[in-house]
């Protein structure tokens, strides 16, 4: 048993070490979060102090057409985009896991797009998707497909942004690659002895072994995809006809352009709960399909 005094000394030391984070947590996270709860029930035009208005914001939200539109856009972008990203990242990781000379060069090359600043990447893709002189239409012309308006076509605006995000799946890819390298060769050998071909090995060895990583990438991917902002803010400004009015852009406009901080606070809370629910549901579902090794 430790003496009380020794333990007390440790407590003091421990809290001294975590103090910077603890202060930051209270000032920059917990405090503001509590404030946000209060603001959600107020009218707060920034330039004058907040006044309590009860459930007015909630009422407004439920009747707000753009609330529904932005939710739908975000859901569309997330539930089509993230699975596509996971599949594409896994395909790239499988390529990079091949044992050939010089594969490291390709690993670097495949990762490069991911470190490009988001803003620069958005501009680049605006230029690529340009309806008049863009590269995308040039490539389509090889296949005899007529040029598209891409980001400026209400039907194609969200798919265009999904393509844009597919280009930057490097982080998911590296996570998968690390996982693939961790699959023991002995499992493949055992499967081969049992007569499993390459495709059977992939289905029955590789996929089950990397389900924790598929799960991780899905969870992280969905959380970040729900928060898409920069691309829509810069490239399409929510258009055409609100097809890229994503949720965070919607919140941003209310908070910082229309100066409706109270309403925006409620909207921010709603997003937080949506993300929380989706994450919890995924953890629930993970019990069914994610395979963890028993240590």
């Amino acid at each position: 048993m430790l003496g009380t005094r020794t333990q007390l000394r440790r407590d003091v030391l421990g809290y001294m070490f975590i103090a910077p984070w603890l202060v930051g947590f209270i000032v920059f996270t917990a405090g503001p979060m509590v404030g946000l709860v209060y603001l959600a029930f107020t009218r707060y035009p920034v330039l004058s102090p907040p006044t309590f208005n009860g459930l007015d914001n909630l009422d407004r939200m439920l009747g707000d057409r753009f609330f529904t539109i932005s939710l739908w856009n975000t859901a569309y972008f997330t539930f089509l985009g993230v699975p596509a990203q996971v599949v594409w990242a896994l395909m790239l990781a499988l390529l990079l896991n091949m044992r050939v000379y010089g594969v490291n060069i390709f690993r670097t090359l495949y990762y490069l797009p991911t470190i490009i600043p988001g803003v620069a990447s958005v501009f680049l893709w605006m230029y690529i998707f340009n309806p008049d002189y863009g590269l995308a239409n040039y490539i389509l012309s090889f296949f005899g497909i007529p040029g598209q308006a891409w980001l400026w076509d209400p039907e194609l605006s969200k798919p265009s942004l999904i393509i844009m995000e597919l280009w930057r799946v490097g982080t998911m890819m590296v996570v998968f690659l690390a996982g693939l390298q961790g699959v023991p060769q002995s499992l493949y050998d055992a499967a081969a002895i049992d007569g499993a071909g390459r495709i059977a090995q992939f289905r029955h060895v590789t996929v089950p072994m990397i389900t924790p990583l598929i799960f991780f990438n899905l969870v992280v991917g969905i959380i970040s995809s729900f928060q898409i902002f920069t691309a829509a803010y810069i490239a399409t400004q929510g258009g055409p006809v609100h097809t890229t009015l994503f949720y965070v852009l919607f919140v941003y406009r209310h908070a910082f352009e229309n100066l409706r901080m109270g309403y925006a606070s409620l909207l921010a809370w709603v997003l937080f709960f949506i993300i929380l629910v989706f994450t919890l549901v995924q953890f629930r579902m993970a019990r069914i399909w994610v395979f963890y090794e028993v240590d």
Partner: protein
Amino acid sequence: MGVLRGGLRPFSSALASNTVRYALLILGGVICFIPLGWMLSTSLKMPGTEFIFPPNLIPRPVVWSNYIDAVTRPGHPFFLYTRNSVVITLTATLGTVLTSSFVAFGFARIRFRGRDFWFIVLLSTLMLPDVVRLIPSFILFRILGWIDTLLPLIVPFWFGVNAFYVFLIRQYFRTIPLELDEAALMDGATYVRIYWQVVLPISGPVLGAVTIFSVLSHWNDFLGSLIYTNSVDLRTLALGLRFFMSRTGTDWNQLMAASILMLAPILALFFSMQRYFIRGIHMTGFGGR
């Protein structure tokens, strides 16, 4: 590829499958590289030729003037933007590395009461979407009088707001034997000295990884500077880039040249610290699975 491993195959078939492997790798590489090559190519094209359709992939003639024009645009002080980005990135990263490692030391190596509780609190902040923090932080900084200064982009990072880094470093610190601390304590060292002189010097890999992640996120940050700064003098590169676009038209050559200039330092960093980077991702605990 995992599925391609296993079994001995005759030489000729091995050769054929290697050709297929390279073909696939190169195809993927082309897909990844084309947009980037397009950026570079556009930045070197003579102004006016970027509107030609079908486009020329190789600029003819190659001109460098877009780079000069991009950094000397009237009303858009490129070097000032660069300086702001450098100042923010360096000071915020320094804060992140020092604070996160200091806090992580407490969580990893001192057994104090309430430690597990606070660690769970820390982990739960990882799930908090940024947008939830955005509005109340803005109001807080407004009260503090920090709007239209660089402080909101720097100060919070001296208080460990990015819990992910604390978590990452703590995981690494836990792999260092505690006997080192005990021996140092015997010799009369304080915990602060153990942190600074024993643990930090052997934690290069994780500190390197955190440094890279942090530099990238601050250098590329757009939303933060969009919200907290208004003055032209305080714009970062990420924000300044936006002003190459205007209602009257976008100067794509200059925009791409400026993008390349913004990209160059992080590319250099990426290439020089690549091994930390990959190891950092392995360190998140998903490596060995």
